[in-house]
C-alpha cells in the first residue's frame, strides 16, 4: 500500500480513554459520547493513501484494550466499528478517512469465540489490516522527523484529527481553520507542548495547501458548489493549476518536512503571549512563515493565508478596541470559522468577563458546541441565542427581544442578514467605538 504518513499520536491509560471518547464525540458531530471506553492504549497514525487513482486520508489505529465478551459498552471492537461507520457511512459525520487496524500478532488458528467472530467479520467485509511491523516502520519514520504527538491535550488532538480527516467541503474547510486557530492558541498562549501542537499544525497546513488544491483539480465541482462563497478557499484557487504538473506524494512529503522544520526553527524560544497585542503579533509571524514556505515551495505568491488569517485580523481589531478599557460584557456572532480561542485570548487579558452573549445559526451549531466545551469553566454567564441565517425577519425580531442589556465589546461578523440584525438590536446598547464589524 502506498501510504504517506503525516502525524502520529499516542496515549495511555485514562488519557487514551479520553482521547477516543472526544474523537468519537467530535467526529460524530456530537451524536455520540462514549463513557469510559474499555481501552488502555491507543496509537493513531494519520496519512494519505492511494485508492484506485486518487489519494485519500487514512487513519491506522493500534488500540489495546478489552475485547472480551464480558466487557460491555465501548470495547475495542465497538470503537473501531463506530469509527468505520462514522468515517465511511454516516453522512452527518465530518470524519472522513479510511480506517485501518493493526494486527499485533499473527493468528494462526482462531478458536476463541471472539476471535472467530472477529476473523469472520474481517474476512466477510475484506477488512485489511496493517501489520504492526509496517505500522512501527511508519512511526519510526515520523519520529525521525519529529512528527509525533505525546502530550497534547486530548480535545485539541481529537479536533485536529477530525479537521485533518475532513473532505473538500465547506464545513471541512471551516474545521481546518478552527483546529489551526486552536493550535495557534496552544503554541502562543500556553507555550508548553508546543512541539506537539506543531505536528498537527503541519498536518493541517499540508492538507490545506497540497491535498485540497489536488482534490479541487481532480473534482472541479468543489469550487462551484461547496466552496463557491468560501473566502478561505481563495488561496487554494491560486494553487490548483500548479497541482496539474506535480506529484502529490512527493509534494506532501517535501512540504511536510519543510513546514515542520521551518515552524520548529522559527517559533522556538517564543515566550507565552502576555497580551492580545503580543498574541496578534505572534499570529502575524506564524502567518508570514506559512506564506513564505508556500511561496518558496511552489514558487508562487498566495495573497492570503487560509487557516489563521481571519484570527489574526480579529485579534488585531480586538487589541485596538480594548486598549483603554477592558470589556466585561461581550457579544459575539459566530461564523463557521470562529474558534473558542478568540474569546480565550480576551479572557487571558481581561480575566473576569461578566457576561458573554453568543449568537449562532444552524450553520454554526458545531462552533456553538465547541464554545460551550471550552468556555463553560472560565466564564460563568454565557447566553446562547440561536437565530436563522436565511429567515432574517425572525432573526431581527428574536434579537430585538433578547438583546436589551449594555455591552462593552461586540464582535459582529458573518452574513449581512444576521450582522445587520445584530447591529440593529445593539443600537443604544453599546458605544459604537466598541463594535467590531468585520
Amino acid at each position, binding site marked *: 500500500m502506498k501510504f504517506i504518513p503525516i502525524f502520529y499520536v499516542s496515549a495511555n491509560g485514562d488519557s487514551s480513554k479520553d482521547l477516543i471518547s472526544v474523537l468519537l464525540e467530535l467526529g460524530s458531530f456530537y451524536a455520540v459520547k462514549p463513557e469510559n471506553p474499555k481501552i488502555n492504549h491507543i496509537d493513531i497514525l494519520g496519512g494519505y493513501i492511494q485508492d484506485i487513482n486518487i489519494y485519500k486520508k487514512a487513519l491506522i489505529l493500534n488500540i489495546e484494550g478489552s475485547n472480551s465478551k464480558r466487557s460491555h459498552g465501548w470495547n475495542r471492537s465497538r470503537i473501531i466499528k463506530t469509527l468505520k461507520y462514522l468515517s465511511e457511512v454516516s453522512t452527518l459525520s465530518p470524519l472522513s478517512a479510511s480506517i485501518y487496524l493493526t494486527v499485533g500478532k499473527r493468528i494462526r488458528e482462531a478458536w476463541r469465540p471472539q476471535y472467530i467472530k472477529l476473523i469472520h467479520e474481517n474476512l466477510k467485509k475484506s477488512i485489511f489490516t496493517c501489520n504492526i511491523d509496517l505500522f512501527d516502520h511508519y512511526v519510526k519514520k515520523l519520529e525521525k522527523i519529529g512528527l509525533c504527538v505525546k502530550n497534547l491535550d486530548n480535545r485539541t488532538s481529537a479536533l485536529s484529527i477530525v479537521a485533518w480527516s475532513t473532505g473538500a467541503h465547506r464545513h471541512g474547510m471551516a474545521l481546518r481553520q478552527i483546529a489551526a486557530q486552536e493550535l495557534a492558541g496552544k503554541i502562543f498562549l500556553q507555550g508548553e507542548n508546543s512541539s506537539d501542537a506543531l505536528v498537527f499544525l503541519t498536518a493541517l497546513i499540508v492538507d490545506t495547501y497540497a491535498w485540497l488544491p489536488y482534490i479541487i483539480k481532480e473534482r472541479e465541482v468543489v469550487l462551484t458548489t461547496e466552496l463557491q462563497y468560501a473566502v478561505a478557499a481563495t488561496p487554494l484557487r491560486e494553487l490548483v493549476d500548479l497541482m496539474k504538473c506535480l506529484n502529490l506524494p512527493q509534494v506532501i512529503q517535501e512540504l511536510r518536512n519543510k513546514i515542520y522544520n521551518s515552524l520548529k526553527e522559527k517559533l522556538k524560544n517564543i515566550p507565552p503571549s502576555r497580551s492580545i497585542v503580543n498574541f496578534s503579533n505572534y499570529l502575524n509571524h506564524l502567518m508570514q512563515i506559512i506564506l513564505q514556505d508556500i511561496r518558496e515551495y511552489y514558487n508562487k505568491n498566495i495573497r492570503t493565508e487560509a487557516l489563521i488569517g481571519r484570527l489574526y485580523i480579529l485579534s488585531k481589531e480586538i487589541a485596538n478596541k480594548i486598549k483603554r478599557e477592558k470589556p466585561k460584557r461581550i457579544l459575539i456572532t459566530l461564523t463557521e470559522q470562529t474558534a473558542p480561542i478568540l474569546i480565550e485570548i480576551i479572557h487571558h487579558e481581561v480575566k473576569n468577563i461578566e457576561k458573554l452573549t453568543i449568537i449562532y445559526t444552524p450553520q454554526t451549531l458545531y462552533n456553538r458546541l465547541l464554545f460551550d466545551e471550552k468556555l463553560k469553566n472560565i466564564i460563568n454567564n454565557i447566553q446562547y441565542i440561536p437565530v436563522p441565517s436565511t429567515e432574517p425577519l425572525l432573526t431581527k425580531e428574536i434579537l430585538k427581544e433578547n438583546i436589551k442589556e449594555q455591552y462593552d465589546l461586540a464582535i459582529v461578523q458573518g452574513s449581512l442578514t444576521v450582522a445587520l440584525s445584530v447591529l440593529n438590536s445593539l443600537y443604544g446598547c453599546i458605544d*459604537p467605538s466598541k463594535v467590531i464589524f468585520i
Partner: protein
Amino acid sequence: MPQNNTNTCQLEIVVSIPSITIFYPDLTYSFSDCAREYDALIIAKIHNYPLILLGEEVSDFEESGKVIIDLSLWHPPVLYIFDKTTKGRYYEEFLVPLRLFTKNVSLTYTIQPDEMAYIWMNGYELFNLLFYSLLFTHYNTSRKILNDISSMRYPQQPSLNILSELSICLKSIIENNTVPTLDKINSPKYMNIDAPKTASEIIAELATKEIVIYFFPQLLKEYEKSEKRKYFPINLAVLILNVLSEKVNKLYFRVIGTGLGTQYSEYILKEIKNLLVDFEINCNIKGIISRNLDETKSLLVEDAHKIASETNTPSILIIVAGDYGKRPFAKLVANIASAFRKSELTILVFPEVIYRISKKKENRLASMSAPLNIILKRNEKKEGFSQFELFLEKDILLIKSKEASKLVDLLTQLIGERI
C-alpha cells in the same frame, strides 16, 4: 408495536407533527436537498411515560430504500405505517426485518399539514435546528440546544411561539421523562394565522413618487463558469424594478461594484439593462463601479448629488442581493445617507436560498429553494415573475424608517468617517 390488547401498553399520541424535513445544518446557505424527510414526528405516551417516534407512512414499495438512508443517519426509531389502502403486500415484501411497523392503520396528525404549512411559512430554520438536535445528537447536546431555544424571549410571532412550546415539551421529556400539556400546540385557535406577505407586496408598499435604489450584488467568484447562480442578483433587480416601475414617477437604479466584485457587477449591470429593454421597464439605470473603494465612493457621491438636483427628497432603497463585504457596505451606505439627509431610507437584504413551504398534500412541507437562480426569458415573463412570489416576509430583512436611520447612524460611526 401498539395493539388493542388489555395486557399490552396503550399508546396515547400527544402531538403528531406532519412532514419533518431535516436539512444538514452545515448546508443552510446552500441550495441542498434534505438529509431525510419523515412523515411525522410523534410525541406519545405509554402509561404516562413519554416516547418520541418518527412516523413513515408507506405508500409505495420504493420507500423501502429509506431504511438504507436511515442507516447512514444513525437510524432514529422510525415507525413504518402500512394503512389499509396500501396496495400489494408491501409490509411483507418491504425490507425485512423491519424494526418497528404497524399495519391497517392510518397516520393521524394532531396538527394538520395545511396548518403546519402556515406556521412554517413564517419560519422553518429554527425548527430544523430543533429537529436535527433532537434526532441526531447525543442526549447532552440535544439538551443544550433545546435549552437555548426554550430559554429565549420570543416576540409575538406564531411560528416562534410554537417553536418555544415544542422545545419546552421536548426538554421536559428529555430531562424529566414527563410530557407537559400541549394545549397551545394542538389548539386550532393558536394555528389560525394569516398568510405572510409576499416580496411583491412588501416592495409595492415601499413605492413613493421618487425612488433611488442602490443595489449591492454579492460577490460570485468565477461567475463566468456559473450557469444559474449568477442570475440571482440580475433577476432580483429586474423583479423589484418590475413591481416599482408601474407605481413610481422617477425611478433610479444604481448597481454598486467595488474590489473583487467589479467585473461581476459590470456583467450584472449589462444583463439588467438587456432585460429591462425586453420587459419594457423604464428606469434610470447606471453602474457605480470601480475597483478602488474610495473611487467608488466618489462616483457615488457625485451621482447622488446629481440625482438630488433632479428630485425632491426621493425615497432611498438599499438592496443587498445575498451578502456584501461589511466595510465597503458600511462606507458606501454612510455616504448614501449623507447625500440624501432628508430622505427616508430603507434597507433590504434578500438571501439567495430560502426555505420553501408547500401547501400541497402530496409534497413534503419544507424544501430548499433558490427561486431566482433561473434564466428569465422574454416570452416567459409571467412565469419568471411568479418566482418572486416565493420570497415571503420571513425571507427578507427589512429595516425601515427610524430603525434604518439608527442603523445607518451606527454604520457611519463604525467606519469612523466624517461625512
